């Protein structure tokens, strides 16, 4: 059962554009929602994370918007650059003693120069 659904599968934007990646979850026990960036041949790198008690979090050019009632969250990348071209994964975690991450299926982002 896929507990975190991510879309779109791929995304192409021009430099300076604002790509938006969306995720929806089913398990209301999830308590932590990180986004990871992964380059080919590398492990996922933590970008930014949010908890369900806030609706938005911004770090640099990356913003998470969180809608608890809709069970959805999204990543916005402001002023995107070619160096942002990578695969992005959303994830969710229940917390407490259960600390494993449940990942979405990934979005391959290409930022054209």
């Amino acid at each position, binding site marked *: 059962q896929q507990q975190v659904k*991510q879309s779109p599968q791929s995304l192409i934007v021009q430099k300076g554009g604002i790509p938006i990646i969306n995720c929806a979850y089913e398990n209301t026990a999830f*308590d*932590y929602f*990180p986004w*990871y960036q992964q380059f080919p*041949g*590398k*492990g*996922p*790198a*933590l970008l930014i*994370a949010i*908890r369900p008690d806030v609706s938005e979090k911004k770090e640099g050019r990356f913003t998470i918007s969180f809608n608890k009632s809709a069970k959805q969250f999204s990543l916005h990348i402001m002023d995107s650059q070619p160096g942002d071209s990578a695969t992005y*994964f959303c*994830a969710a*975690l229940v*917390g407490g*003693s*259960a*600390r*494993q*991450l*449940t*990942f*979405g*299926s*990934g979005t391959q982002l290409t930022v054209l120069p």
Partner: protein
Amino acid sequence: GAGVSQSPRYKVAKRGQDVALRCDPISGHVSLFWYQQALGQGPEFLTYFQNEAQLDKSGLPSDRFFAERPEGSVSTLKIQRTQQEDSAVYLCASSLLSYRNYEQYFGPGTRLTVT
């Protein structure tokens, strides 16, 4: 400081061979996780250690998969009698164990190819 390291980075095994994959977590990180990432997919949880105790192994796909962390630091994921479906990238992550601090830091992974 040093991040999570994994070795080998690449491993080619013939079907039926046993393999051992190593993970060195960030120093001081109590929690250690193994994930499996198939090509073009998100990582999937395999198992979780807190110090030397394996608290959750619900994601291990079969009894051919075995993980250990005997001294609460380095961990080894062993796969016996490898099958083609075991081909994937195996990722290790580590984390502090503190109240509501869930940040996990990943290593570069070991790409296993079973021929």
